[in-house]
């Protein structure tokens, strides 16, 4: 992949784009082998509890070596012990389908708030034998969600509740050592929320991004910089189909083209990108992919132009891959947005940190976020710590370096919506440093 540079009067100098060794690890998120037999979600919770409980049992002796470990049914009053189970958070404001059938006029307003946290929420710990309410002021329910597995130390009170004295989370998973840092800079560009087809999409803005990345803009310095970009990731919400047309009625022929316009436009842009460098495209909540997680790769038929290139890779959501032995893991934002609705934290990065500490990418699935009812595995468990963890479709660009207790180091990245902010994110593979790339087409700077 070469970029021509014309210097006034001289012969054109060719800049070659750098390359990185890419390995796609999306197999665990693919559903092609599964057949739905009418099973329910109990199996996914069972496998999650089983895996996490074995993990926590191995960590408990180091945490509190002298205490017995019980099941919920084996609790004895006033005897201090440790129990391991799945947290269920009872939320007063959580929308329930049964509210529609409630005979009393509901006190809760029907307009849904953005955040369902209420001071009266309480936590319950559950395993196969039973469930018990967690009491005490150590655990703040607003920091937890249904679906995470933890170990709690405490004792049963006379009321039948479990008074919590201490709590253990699994913590960051072990991390494969980062490869020794190379001497050359290689960059990865992340973008999300293009929303082609929506009113906020500015075609010139994205075209600027594409031209800059492919090296058609700028002087020799800029082009040298652009030639160091080795990979391009689109983290979801690339198109937005007009919702008014999708109400179940037959679409008039003239409206049919408005349905397909955004995807055709996206294909043209992807064509330009794929011709220049490897492109990964992930589906998001508004893309034409399945609704429940893990979202399957966007069909290659949608991109007749771009899929002719072997550099075009359609990926699942969540997406896991390796570039030059650096582990990447990311989603299009549904996991963090759902945590934001059902719990509180000071910023989105803190939610991301919590998902890593709980070792589960989407703890609220299948409770409040749709997911496939797997029977023999839970693919969202994070078994090894990534080096880079990114989440798309967020409100603003945020990043931090998270340090773990076992020498783990993760770069957390929140990728903002491009249609609203015009910001893409660049990551340097040499030192995992991040910076933003901002494009503006306004006349007043």
């Amino acid at each position, binding site marked *: 992949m070469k970029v021509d540079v014309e210097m006034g009067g001289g012969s054109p100098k060719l800049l070659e784009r750098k390359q990185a060794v890419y390995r796609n690890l999306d197999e665990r998120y693919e559903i092609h082998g599964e057949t739905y*037999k*009418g*099973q*329910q979600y*109990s*199996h996914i919770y*069972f*496998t999650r509890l*089983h895996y996490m409980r074995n993990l926590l049992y191995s960590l408990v002796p180091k945490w509190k070596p002298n205490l017995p470990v019980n099941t919920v049914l084996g609790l004895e009053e006033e005897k201090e012990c440790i129990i391991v189970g799945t947290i269920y958070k009872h939320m007063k404001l959580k929308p329930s389908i049964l509210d529609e059938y409630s005979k009393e006029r509901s006190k809760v307003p029907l307009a849904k708030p953005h955040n369902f946290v209420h001071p009266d929420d309480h936590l319950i710990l559950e395993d*196969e*034998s039973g469930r018990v309410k967690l009491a005490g002021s150590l655990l703040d329910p607003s920091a937890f969600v249904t679906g995470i597995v933890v170990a709690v130390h405490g004792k049963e009170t006379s009321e039948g509740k479990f008074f919590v004295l201490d709590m253990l989370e699994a913590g960051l998973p072990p991390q494969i050592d980062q490869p020794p840092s190379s001497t050359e800079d290689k960059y990865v560009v992340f973008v999300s929320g293009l929303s082609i087809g929506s009113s906020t999409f500015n075609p010139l803005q994205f075209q600027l991004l594409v031209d800059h990345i492919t090296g058609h803009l700028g002087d020799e310095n800029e082009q040298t910089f652009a030639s160091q970009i080795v990979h391009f990731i689109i983290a979801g919400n690339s198109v937005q189909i007009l919702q008014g047309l999708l109400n179940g009625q037959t679409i008039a022929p003239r409206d049919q083209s408005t349905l397909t316009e955004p995807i055709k436009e996206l294909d043209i842009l992807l064509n330009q990108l794929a011709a220049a460098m490897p492109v990964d495209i992930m589906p998001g909540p508004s893309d034409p992919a399945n609704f429940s997680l893990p979202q399957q790769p966007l069909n290659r038929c949608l991109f007749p132009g771009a899929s002719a290139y072997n550099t075009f890779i359609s990926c699942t959501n969540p997406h896991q891959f390796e570039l030059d032995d650096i582990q990447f893991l990311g989603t299009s934002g549904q996991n963090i947005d759902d945590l934001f609705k059902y719990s509180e934290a000071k910023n989105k990065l803190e939610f991301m940190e919590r998902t890593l500490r709980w070792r589960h990418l989407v703890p609220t699935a299948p409770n409040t976020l749709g997911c496939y*009812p797997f*029977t*023999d595995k839970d693919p969202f468990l994070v078994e090894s710590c990534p080096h880079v963890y990114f989440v798309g479709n967020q409100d603003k660009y945020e990043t931090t370096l998270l340090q773990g207790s076992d020498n783990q180091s993760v770069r957390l990245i929140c990728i903002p919506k491009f249609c609203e902010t015009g910001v893409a994110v660049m990551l340097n593979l040499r030192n995992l440093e991040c910076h933003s790339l901002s494009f503006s087409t306004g006349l007043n700077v």
Partner: protein
Amino acid sequence: MASVGMGGFYRQKKRGGIAKPTLKRSSTGKSAAIALSFTDPDQSPVLGAIAEHGKTASAVAFEEERLRQFDLDMRYGPCLGLSRMERWDRAAAMGLNPPGDVEAILLKSSAAAADCHWEGRI
């Protein structure tokens, strides 16, 4: 749920195995069949045993009982939505050491129901 009787009458899956119970269920008197499965001819070990080679009725009943115990054992997770063999395989893959005699019954016995006790009833 629709009565189990009609669902069994139009059963699509083949029973499989060497000897199939050839007795058809009669439509009279089979409503509200959430009764004990002993009255259900498709699953009745007594009638099924007639087709089974060299097995007494009590041996078949014992096997069915053993399989039901396996279904309800909560160590191996929920039983609905999974065939018994799949659940056994899952338990083995997770390292839970499911009982070997249950596997033997599932592999060799053709009268053993493939699905768990509650399948179709919940």
